[in-house]
């Protein structure tokens, strides 16, 4: 048998490696020029090759699923799919041997040290500009150079997070292609890649003695509080918010490190210090990890249209140097023109020879360099591209223009642009890319690659993240940067030259129990706001679906009860009128067909926020905004609406039965979300705001439908069917039947749906829950007088408790029910004002967008 097994393994090797033949003359990571597997890869292949190809396929599929579920494909956050970069992780890691890594680490950390020194000079005494080592026009033409930040960060090391894009040329020599110092440059993607990849490849990872990334992040956690002189809890990651494509990156990093994720509008500078607006007022922020462009970080001192940071942040940094990392203005180091000067700078600033050369390129800020381009042959391979990239997102480097690819008129236009704005451009020739193996169903394929590596300042030096993101370079003949718009990535595995220490979980912060914020009083106002609305929208969606479903089911006669078409129509009309769209409804001819037509209208997109699509869109938007606060289950649950295309058809083309099935599925999904939040969320303020939203919406719906169906005069013969409809809508038919065992009576129904505080669908129950939550909020008052919102809810609940169901059911002289009508009017007014009061007290600061003023 062993012999057979060996033979099988050889056959498998044949399938995996069979066609693997890198282009002649091109360096390959996996095999030598003679086709022999390199030693660094052997332990891995030894583990991987015996896996039957059917299992490999399964693993790849599983990996894809995890990529999707973890939200790595960035459309999870994006409002639209436009410009979305897809994301995929190759089953095959990119393996770097211990020796290679040792050299790369030295070369990359040297770069980081060098850039740090350059930055100190540019924002300090500028001797490099004074003596012309760096051309001043290169710096002063670059909007990333922030003059208001001169001498701002006294005595601090400006670069904490450093990233670099590197590639090998055809002969295997490494070169640097881009520097990333402005933001954290996608380090969240690197962690997410590792987490997801090891879910599938974990066993092999263990067996191959690969270095772990966790210790790097542990060091971040240990270093940053000291660097900022701050407590863990007062460190924030500053992001643009979810409209930005890199939000996933920032949210993931925040969750992994356990830091607050904040946006510019969450912060305020008071007395020269930065504060976070929270439920319980302003809480200090002592350290900011900047994931936004420096230029747009302070609308007062910097770009007046940039509100990604709080006004006066520059002053706060002057007050507390080191408050923001990387230091404001660090984007200037990304200027590609600097590359040519690095060898000289390394000599003069570090006294060292530059280890890792930069791609050869020239900056078009001098007349001489511009003339070279103008004189170049039309068929030249010269590539002209911007000196600054702007995007820190891995793989989205903008493509340059290759002279040879341009028409004559395009070339003329480019010449004119260079003549005018040459300072913003560089030129270079593609130096080619080495290849590395990618796994496919049909075996390995050699693929051109470049990679992004990360380092962080630790003490006097920089420490490498032992890993990173390797990417498949798109169109390697003309690419000069990390051009990988397809987002095909590989996790970088660094082989350890010593036994790796056992896995330590990163999530072990040093918690001082006396200071933990169990109630979550430091919850940002913006998050509380979104939770409240998520509560309202999920409830609204459930109600909309219930209405549609009940109406669809009851258009058919059931147990001898003639359906009350009028009641259904009136109820559905509430939704349509609240949506505010300009909708023409079918004529009321008392036919079941009109109900189906109205339901079809409700599933269209233009019916407003109370229609099916409107409310589902609102749910997804609110959920995305607080994605980092939701458990994976809760998120997956809500995100399933996004995934099922049936919800998004312009006109539900479904048959009645299919529509009912879809609605059933939707109601179950929402019930599951409700259950997850009920079972898994800590009873803190986050949970309370979600609940207040849900209860308030449910109470509103209940009031409106009861008023519509019963406060106005009724046709006697319809009452029973109308009561059945109401009980079903309120999910209280079973309760009613088990209690009373006879056909519905209005007084008893009103008691069950309004007054009964033990029925979770009753108005009284909602009010009593809202009251409990409000009393527990941080700004509520413990004395009897209470705050305004406490008084409003007390008044509302007292009116319900004093109401007599028999009086409510009483007909008045006009054959209507004015008692019921008055009560519900009062309740609707109270609920509306309650919503406003809560918003004003807890969320209002977020609504007040700062305004920029100027003298005329």
């Amino acid at each position, binding site marked *: 048998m062993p012999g057979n097994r060996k033979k099988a393994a050889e056959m498998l090797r044949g399938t995996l490696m069979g066609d693997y033949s890198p282009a002649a003359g091109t360096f390959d990571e996996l095999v030598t020029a003679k086709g022999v597997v390199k030693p660094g890869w052997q332990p891995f292949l030894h583990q991987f090759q015996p896996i039957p190809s059917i299992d490999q396929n399964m693993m790849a599929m599983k990996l894809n699923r995890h990529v999707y579920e973890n939200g790595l494909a960035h459309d999870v956050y994006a409002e639209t799919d436009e410009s979305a970069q897809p994301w995929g992780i190759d089953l095959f890691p990119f393996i770097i041997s211990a020796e290679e890594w040792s050299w790369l680490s030295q070369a990359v950390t040297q770069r980081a040290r060098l850039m740090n020194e350059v930055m100190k000079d540019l924002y300090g005494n*500028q001797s490099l*500009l*004074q*003596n*012309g080592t760096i051309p*001043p*026009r290169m710096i*002063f*033409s670059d*909007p990333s150079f922030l*003059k*208001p930040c*001169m001498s701002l960060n006294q005595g601090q090391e400006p670069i904490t997070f450093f990233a670099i894009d590197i590639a090998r040329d055809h002969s295997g020599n490494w070169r640097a292609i881009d520097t990333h110092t402005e933001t954290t440059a996608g380090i969240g993607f690197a962690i997410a890649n590792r987490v997801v990849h090891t879910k599938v490849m974990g066993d092999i990872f263990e067996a191959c003695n690969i270095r772990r990334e966790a210790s790097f992040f542990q060091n971040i956690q240990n270093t940053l509080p000291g660097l900022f002189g701050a407590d863990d809890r007062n460190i924030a990651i500053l992001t643009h918010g979810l409209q930005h494509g890199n939000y996933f990156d920032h949210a993931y990093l925040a969750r992994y490190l356990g830091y607050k994720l904040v946006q510019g509008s969450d912060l*305020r*500078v*008071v*007395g*020269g210090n930065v504060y976070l607006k929270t439920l319980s007022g302003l809480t200090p922020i002592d350290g900011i990890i900047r994931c936004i462009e420096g230029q747009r970080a302070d*609308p*007062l*001192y910097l*770009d*007046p249209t940039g509100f990604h940071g709080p*006004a*006066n942040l520059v*002053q706060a940094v002057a007050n507390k140097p080191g408050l923001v990392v990387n230091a404001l203005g660090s984007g200037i180091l990304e200027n590609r023109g600097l590359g040519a000067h690095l060898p000289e700078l390394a000599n003069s600033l570090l006294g060292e020879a530059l280890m890792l050369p930069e791609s050869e390129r020239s900056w078009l800020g*001098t*007349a001489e360099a511009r003339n070279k381009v103008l004189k170049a042959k039309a068929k030249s391979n010269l590539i002209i591209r911007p000196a600054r990239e702007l995007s820190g997102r891995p793989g989205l480097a903008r493509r340059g223009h290759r002279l040879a690819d341009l028409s004559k008129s395009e070339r003329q236009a480019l010449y*004119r642009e260079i003549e*005018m*704005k040459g*300072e913003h451009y560089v030129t270079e020739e593609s130096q080619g890319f080495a290849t590395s193996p990618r796994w496919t169903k049909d075996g390995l394929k050699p693929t051109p690659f470049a990679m992004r590596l990360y380092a962080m300042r630790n003490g006097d030096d920089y420490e490498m993240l032992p890993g990173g993101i390797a990417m498949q370079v798109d169109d390697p003949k003309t690419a000069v940067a990390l051009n990988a718009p397809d987002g095909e990535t590989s996790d970088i595995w660094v082989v350890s030259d010593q036994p790796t220490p056992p896995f330590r979980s990163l999530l072990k912060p040093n918690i001082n129990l006396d200071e933990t914020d169990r109630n979550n009083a430091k919850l940002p106002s913006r998050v509380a706001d979104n939770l409240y609305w998520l509560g309202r929208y999920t409830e609204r969606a459930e109600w909309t679906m219930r209405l549609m479903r009940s109406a669809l089911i009851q258009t058919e006669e059931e147990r001898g009860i003639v359906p009350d078409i009028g009641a259904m129509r009136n109820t559905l009309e509430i939704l349509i009128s609240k949506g505010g769209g300009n909708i023409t409804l079918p004529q009321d001819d008392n036919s079941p067909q009109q109900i189906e037509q109205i339901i079809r209208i409700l599933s269209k997109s233009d019916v407003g926020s109370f229609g099916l699509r409107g409310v589902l869109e609102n749910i997804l938007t609110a959920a995305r905004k607080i994605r980092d606060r939701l458990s994976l289950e809760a998120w997956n649950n809500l995100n399933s609406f996004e995934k099922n295309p049936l919800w998004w058809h312009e006109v539900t083309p479904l048959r009645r039965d299919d529509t009912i099935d879809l609605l059933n599925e939707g109601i179950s999904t929402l019930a599951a979300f409700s259950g997850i939040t009920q079972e898994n969320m800590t009873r803190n303020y986050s949970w309370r705001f979600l609940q207040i939203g849900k209860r308030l919406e449910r109470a509103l719906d209940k009031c409106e439908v009861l008023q519509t169906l019963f406060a106005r005069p009724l046709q006697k013969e319809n009452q029973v069917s109308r009561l059945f409809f109401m009980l079903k809508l309120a999910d209280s038919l079973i309760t009613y039947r088990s209690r009373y065992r006879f056909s519905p009576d209005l007084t008893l129904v009103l008691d069950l749906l309004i007054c009964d505080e033990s029925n979770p669908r009753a108005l009284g129950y909602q009010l009593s829950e809202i009251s409990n939550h409000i009393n527990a909020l941080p700004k509520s008052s413990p004395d009897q007088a209470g705050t305004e919102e406490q008084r409003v809810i007390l008044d509302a609940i007292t009116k319900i408790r004093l109401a007599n169901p028999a009086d409510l059911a009483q007909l008045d002289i006009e054959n209507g029910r004015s008692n019921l009508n008055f009560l519900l009017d009062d309740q609707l007014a109270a609920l509306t004002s309650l919503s406003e009061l809560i918003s004003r007290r807890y969320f209002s*600061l977020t609504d*007040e967008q*700062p*305004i*920029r*003023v*100027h*003298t*005329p």
Partner: protein
Amino acid sequence: MKYQIDHKTIYNYIAPVVQSHHILHLSPRVVPHQNILSHTLIIDPAPASRIDFVDYNQNPTANVTIEQDHSNLQFHAQSQIEILLTPPEITQSPPWEEVVNIAAQSKGLELLPYSCWSLLTPPSAEILEYAKISFTPKRPIHEAALDLTARIFTEFTFDNSATDVSTPISKVLKMKRGVCQDFAHLQIACLRALRLPTKYVSGYLLTHPPEGMQKLAGSDASHAWLSVWCGNDLGWVDLDPTNNMIPYNEHITFAYGMDYDDVSPISGVLIGGGSQTVTVAVDVAQIQ
């Protein structure tokens, strides 16, 4: 010549402002040709914090934060300045291309930063074309620059309803209308498109009422012009395209910068306030 400059700005807000941050360039900078005789700046309501500093352009700057709720806000700056300038006498100047070269080869940071364009003075094909009508090959720089100043003065109409602080110069060039800031930005953009070092100058101008009329109180305004480097001998020479003149004893310099954003008299970011109205009253008067 001695001047008293009185600059009062009042903001009225519909809703109370909860917090406002301001950067002020209301104080005169130190320049060789002026003496600052006195200067006061009063802010009402009193700010929670006021930090006076010299910014990266060497302009005196104040950072002011008001933390109390307020529905109006007043800045009142008063300065007395003496101008020591003698009338400029320029007969010869080097060809402009030579000045571009000298600047490009220059060491230090006196010239080069000002030869780069800024966000409000970007080059474009149209700007370059407009500049080159005056900047013909080998033309002496001073002559060319004055010609450009005169062209802007004659071809453009002063119109304070046509533009606001956010109007780009490309639009100004198209409309041929604007105010002093627009004309200064436009000429600066033209000169920087040729890579000539050019500064934005912010200050005040003594205005004269029409003959036989009394000057109206508060009818003056802050003014903007530019300064271009004309080679080692001439150095920086001021030009005022709004009035087609070489500023000397009726232009009072307050700040230098790349453009308006660097030296805006009052800029700010506020929370609350709703819509607002602003009243500015400037008086420039000659004193003994």
